């Protein structure tokens, strides 16, 4: 597909009402906690008050004796002998020999009411031996830090590294030292970002049932029902196909609902309680203490630039902690941080470090925001030093199709230059600024992802289409998939119903993650629709007694492909459907693959802030998101992704952080203290959708969910420097920190 070919679609690119809208505005939509089952019990979880402690003894006898309690489980009820990530998941689900962080699950109870379950949890007696702990990444990487787990380092870690380093990354190309010599300005800085939480408003909730025969069912709010199935089965030693997992409507995920936390506990409790279903709903403080926030990072960056703005070399060395388990996205951060730039000499080094914090999960473009904060901040500072326009410098060094990415592969069709050009022309970039006001720009990158995908489509008796997809709809993917299927079949948008189905209905699907739902499920649904069309053309050909190849599909009907094919009036999808029982049976199409042709997405944000010199408070005055969508199938939901991502990034930049006390306990496990942006903190979020179609998708889709959280962190820091002259290098940029920096700069 040529880059700038904008096709005229009948439906793609329009903004119909979403199919689940009515249920959601009337309160009917059923989320994780909204369902009950006959004979249902309520579960509750006892959690460690210590950041690091040996579990000497758990006495559950008083809890078991409480009337109404039907089951209590501890780690002793789980199978042993797991290894690798299965062991990590099991250990995180329920502590074994040690509690590894404040909030780590120690035991769980099922009872006839939620109140009794809570009461029973308080009756469980645990003897701990408290151990020294560490929560900060720079402390955790010290050679004499408390050791979280002996022997957890993998083969990438060279001999002699500090004990909490569990993975080590090193890659690059060219000669960075020579590159720095070619530069007119070389600068080196250290940056820190704190852990933040995805902050979905719906706490984790599930209703699990498991019989003595190993057959089970689960209703759960998740981004990926097959991941839940696979992980619960691994942790509990079950046969995966015997567990049927149905996803509820999901109240936000952002990556945080792609893994398990308390889900296996509901199954273990259910089995112990004779197969009665057990519902577990997390409280907000459980969500913040014991689900998967993102990593915190400490990062050194060194960059060389000529006086006309050419980047000559870059070196990035990142340290991240992602809790008491391996998996901080330090590799992703390194891959993404320099991706918008064509630089011949690059070096990347990364350390994944254990600390006494909850096991991190994915959070929207995992790793990319931290890396961008470091690199985009430094580039901006260098532009200011050399008196260069930051947009010019970004455009001058922008990667284009055919360039080798900083992390190795060669870029296919990408739209960074188009994004930067559109940004430079946007009126926000020339809005006048007053005193104490400043403007910042920054770019961001995300690969986007495909993954295992299975979709099935069936034509109903009346000629409508039903589509079964395995990717839960978080931000409007049912609408976008219905648009693509309706476009392909030549029928109305309203005549397509897209269902997110349970694990028993389709082959394995990866979750809705990596911005993949509209790309991968959309592509598979389009291929499935084409298969159904082929079958409908065949039925018409049989009816007319002509060759199948002589029939084409136009506007929802089969018709002879040309004058030579014969003279027949078009046969509509409704007619074909009505007769399908007599012409060969049900008509359907399906597609299973790991769809190829993922298209990466770049974005650029422009923010204007005003900093109050007396309080240090930063107010967002204007905000612009420009991003390449490939093609916007439903532009309103593309804008929604841009806006939502930007505001999460604003929260990360200005307010949000996990605050641990000296005791290693989380100090702010409620929304009052874990302060996310509210409506009165923000202006409208302006968006501009750039469309450089992805040739790897039938409609050009790239995936839009993640890139948008990346630029706000540096863009706001850059704007604060513009407003105050002060460079903030440690997030979040709270009023207290900004005020201290202002004071220090005046001394």
């Amino acid at each position, binding site marked *: 597909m040529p880059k700038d070919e904008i096709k005229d679609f009948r439906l793609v690119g329009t903004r119909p009402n979403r199919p689940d809208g009515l249920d959601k505005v009337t*309160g009917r939509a059923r989320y994780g906690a*909204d369902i009950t089952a006959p004979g249902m019990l309520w579960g509750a979880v006892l959690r460690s008050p210590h950041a690091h402690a040996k579990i000497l003894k758990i006495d559950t006898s008083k809890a078991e004796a409480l009337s109404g309690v039907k089951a209590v489980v501890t780690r002793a009820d789980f199978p042993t002998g797991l290894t690798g990530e299965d062991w990590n998941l099991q250990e995180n689900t329920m502590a074994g020999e040690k509690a590894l962080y404040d909030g780590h699950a120690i035991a769980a109870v099922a009872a006839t009411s939620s*109140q009794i379950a809570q009461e029973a949890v308080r009756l469980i007696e645990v003897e701990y031996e408290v151990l020294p702990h560490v929560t900060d990444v720079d402390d955790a990487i010290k050679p004499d830090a408390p050791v979280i787990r002996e022997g957890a380092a993998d083969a990438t870690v060279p001999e002699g590294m500090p004990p909490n380093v569990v993975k080590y990354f090193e890659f690059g190309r060219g000669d960075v030292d020579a590159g720095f010599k070619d530069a007119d300005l070389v600068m080196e800085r250290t940056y820190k970002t704190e852990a933040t939480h995805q902050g979905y408003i719906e*706490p984790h909730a599930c209703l699990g049932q498991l019989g003595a025969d190993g057959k089970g069912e689960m209703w759960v709010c998740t981004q990926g029902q097959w991941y839940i199935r696979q992980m619960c089965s691994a942790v509990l030693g079950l046969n995966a196909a015997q567990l049927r997992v149905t996803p509820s409507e999901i109240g936000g995920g952002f990556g945080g609902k792609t893994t398990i936390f308390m889900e296996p506990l509901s199954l273990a409790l259910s089995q112990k309680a004779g197969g009665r279903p057990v519902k577990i709903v997390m409280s907000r403080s459980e969500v913040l203490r014991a689900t998967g926030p993102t990593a915190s990072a400490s990062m050194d960056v060194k960059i060389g630039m000529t006086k006309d703005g050419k980047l000559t070399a870059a070196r990035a060395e990142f340290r991240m902690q992602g809790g008491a388990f391996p998996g901080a996205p330090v590799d992703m951060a390194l891959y993404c941080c320099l991706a918008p730039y064509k630089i011949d000499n690059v070096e990347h080094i990364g350390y994944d470090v254990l600390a006494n914090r909850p096991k991190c999960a994915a959070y929207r473009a995992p790793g990319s925001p931290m890396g961008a904060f470091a690199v985009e901040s430094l580039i901006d500072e260098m532009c200011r030093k050399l008196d260069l326009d930051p947009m010019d410098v970004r455009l001058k060094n922008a990667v284009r199709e055919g360039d080798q990415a900083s992390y190795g592969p060669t870029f296919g069709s990408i739209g960074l230059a188009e994004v930067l050009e559109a940004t430079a022309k946007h009126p926000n970039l020339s809005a006048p600024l007053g005193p104490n006001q400043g403007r910042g720009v920054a770019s961001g990158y995300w690969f986007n992802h495909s993954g295992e995908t299975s979709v099935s489509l069936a034509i109903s008796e009346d000629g409508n289409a039903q589509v079964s997809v395995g990717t839960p709809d978080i931000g409007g993917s049912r609408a976008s998939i219905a648009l693509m299927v309706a476009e392909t079949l030549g029928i109305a948008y309203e005549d397509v119903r897209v269902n997110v189905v349970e694990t028993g209905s389709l082959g394995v699907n990866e979750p809705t993650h990596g911005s993949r739902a509209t790309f991968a499920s959309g592509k598979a649904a389009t291929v499935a629709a084409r298969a159904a069309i082929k079958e409908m053309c065949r039925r018409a050909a049989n009816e007319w007694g002509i060759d199948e190849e002589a029939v084409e599909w136009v506007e929802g009907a089969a018709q002879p492909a040309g004058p030579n094919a014969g003279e027949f009036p078009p046969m509509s999808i409704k007619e074909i459907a009505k007769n399908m029982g007599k012409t060969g049976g049900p008509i359907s199409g399906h597609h299973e693959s790991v769809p190829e042709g993922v298209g990466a997405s770049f974005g650029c944000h422009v923010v204007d802030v005003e900093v109050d010199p007396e309080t240090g408070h930063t107010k967002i005055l204007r905000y612009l998101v420009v991003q390449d969508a490939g093609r916007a199938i439903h532009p309103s939901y593309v804008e929604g992704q841009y806006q939502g991502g930007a505001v999460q990034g604003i929260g990360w930049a200005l307010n949000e952080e996990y605050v641990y006390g000296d005791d290693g306990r989380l100090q702010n496990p*409620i929304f009052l203290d874990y302060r996310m942006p509210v409506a*009165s903190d923000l202006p409208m979020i302006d968006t501009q959708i750039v469309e450089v179609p992805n040739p790897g998708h039938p409609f050009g889709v790239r995936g839009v969910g993640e890139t948008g959280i990346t630029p706000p962190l540096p863009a706001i820091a850059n704007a604060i420097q513009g407003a105050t002259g002060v460079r903030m290098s440690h997030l979040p940029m709270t009023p207290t920190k900004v005020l201290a920096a202002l004071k220090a700069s005046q001394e």
Partner: protein
Amino acid sequence: MSKIHVTTVVNGDEVEFLADPRETLLDCLRDHLGLTGSKEGCGTGDCGACSVTVDGVLISSCLMLGVEAQGKKIETIEGMANGEELHPLQRKFIEHAALQCGFCTPGILVAAKALLEKNPDPTETEVRYWLAGNLCRCTGYDKIIRAVMDAASEMRGAA
């Protein structure tokens, strides 16, 4: 703990339930009356997902005990539409794509309705401050604010 019998009016219907004195109004709506449209996002009064009105006053139902509902008039999201006919706010939320996951939506609709009853012509700033107690993590609020402003303008036109 022995339970307490509560009689109250929800969305115009008289209802009764037995409440554990520790249960919140939100628990009672959801677990005893099957009205799961009101959501629990925090349980501490910080997210607004549980917003309902009690005798016309907007509250967080996670902060009121179920037993306190005795003799009160409660309105929840389930009572917002008039049969098949959506409230203009509900319609505008769909039209403006003002929801993604939709989990915050019931609370925001209930809160926005309470605003428009007090102030039919709010400025953007007034809408933003009124809804500052309702967290939405998906949308960045932009489309929510537009939907509320548009519904207000339609309702003023219709009046």
